[in-house]
């Protein structure tokens, strides 16, 4: 692979390049699992993989519990951790070129999805030079997207930021001349909530959202805050890869894209309200139609991705309510900065709609309830609203939406 070995990498505040990056060195070429929250070891392992093609799994230490760690050792992985190298009892030949991604675990225990550097490389061609901020946890699909962009496309520099310093990313971005940032909607909401004024001053030319449903309100707020930036949202998962990229500033994707077949491009379909994807970027063994588990609604000329099928529907006294649709209505309130909508057990009707909400402090529960009551049916109205002080965010930069 030709690649862009001169792309700049900023790790722990220090600049280097792929060509200069010291690689992780181990005798032989055993399967390697880098379990670390920081980016340094992870990127050095990527450099090694790029050079030798060795089998590789990268994950933040916090995502790997004792059972998963034992499973990796039993499967012959050498573990690279901040405390040193842990060797497995046994040995097995590596799978050349294999990269494993841990799923986010939103549907249970994390599982390994097989990829290669080629299947993770979804962006190519000529791209304007950018300095990307990478706030993602090492080893996630989104992290690999930024990393492979830097590896493959000239002029795509990357500034990493450790999870412990995530709150101060706008300052780090300003210090290192960042011009492009990729993050989840929750990441962007938290940034607008905490550092909106600082964000406004950043010279961002590209901002990207992904990993969670993207609603119109967050797109509009980002466009208002950063009028000079191109705003894109990406639908991607470990299983189907990066399947949808939308750049027109609108939530959802055009209905015209459904069932469109083109060589080398993902095919998108809707079956029983579920998004179905056939993608050239899918994990190995996942070629063909993959039911994503994501619920979609068609609204006018757009297909909106609402949330997970298994958690989106709330049955309120026999009436079906979409948590995602309620959440998106709450997001349109000008004072709402973040919301999570869920079902709560209740007498008589079985479940009622409840919401955790973060506001800008100018409205209370009663005002929000009144406002929602004019926009939602009686059954969909959040009956219990809890106001939180901060936007909760996991290390995957997602919240439980």
């Amino acid at each position, binding site marked *: 692979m030709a690649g862009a070995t001169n792309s700049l990498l900023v790790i722990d505040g220090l600049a280097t390049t792929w060509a200069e990056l010291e690689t992780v060195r181990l005798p032989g070429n055993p399967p390697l699992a880098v379990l670390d929250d920081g980016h340094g070891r992870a990127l050095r392992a990527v450099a090694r993989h790029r050079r030798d093609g060795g089998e590789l799994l990268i994950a933040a230490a916090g995502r790997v519990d004792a059972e998963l760690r034992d499973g990796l050792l039993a499967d012959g992985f050498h573990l690279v951790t901040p405390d040193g190298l842990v060797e497995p009892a046994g040995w097995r030949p590596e799978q050349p070129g294999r990269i494993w991604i841990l799923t986010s675990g939103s549907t249970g225990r994390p599982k390994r999805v097989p990829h290669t550097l080629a299947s993770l490389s979804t962006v190519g061609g000529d791209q304007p030079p950018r300095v990307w901020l990478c706030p993602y946890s090492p080893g996630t699909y989104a992290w690999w997207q930024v990393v492979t962009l830097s590896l493959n496309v000239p002029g795509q520099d990357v500034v990493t930021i450790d999870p412990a310093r995530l709150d101060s990313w706008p300052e780090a971005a300003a210090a290192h001349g960042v011009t492009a940032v990729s993050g989840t909607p929750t990441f962007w909401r938290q940034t607008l909530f905490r550092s909106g004024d600082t964000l406004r001053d950043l010279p961002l030319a590209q901002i990207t959202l992904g990993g969670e449903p993207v609603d119109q309100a967050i797109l509009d707020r980002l466009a208002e805050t950063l009028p000079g930036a191109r705003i894109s949202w990406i639908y991607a998962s470990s299983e189907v890869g990066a399947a949808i990229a939308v750049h027109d500033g609108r939530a959802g994707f055009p209905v015209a894209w459904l069932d469109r077949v083109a060589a080398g491009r993902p095919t998108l379909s809707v079956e029983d309200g579920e998004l179905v994807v056939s993608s050239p970027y899918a994990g190995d063994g996942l070629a063909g139609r993959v039911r994503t588990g994501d619920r979609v609604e068609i609204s006018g000329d757009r297909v909106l991705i609402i949330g997970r099928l298994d958690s989106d529907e709330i049955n309120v006294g026999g009436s079906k309510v979409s948590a995602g649709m309620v959440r998106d209505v709450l997001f349109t309130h000008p004072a709402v900065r973040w919301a999570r909508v869920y079902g709560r057990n*209740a007498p*008589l009707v079985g479940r009622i709609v409840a919401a955790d909400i973060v506001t800008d402090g100018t409205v209370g529960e009663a005002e929000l309830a009144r406002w929602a009551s004019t926009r939602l049916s009686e059954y969909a109205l959040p009956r219990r609203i809890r106001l939180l002080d901060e936007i909760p965010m996991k290390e995957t930069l997602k919240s439980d939406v």
Partner: protein
Amino acid sequence: MQPKTTMRLDRARVRELMALVVATRDVALPDDDAVALRDIGFRSLDFSELALRVEDEIDRELNFDAPGLRSVVTVGDVLDLIDHLQAGS
């Protein structure tokens, strides 16, 4: 397992919570306990919300195995029932 609390809300506090439930629709809860629920549009969803508000304040679930739901017609009936459910939980 957390021990159950024995906290109980008095009738005045339950009335305040009931007022909050109907206030969402800009309805003021009448002072008169004899007012019919249908006159203020108080329905099963409202009762569910009220029950959850009470549960949140007393930090335990109400016992809905207790009989009596069919006799709820007035504001006073709701207050009586919540009192009854608190005693039985």
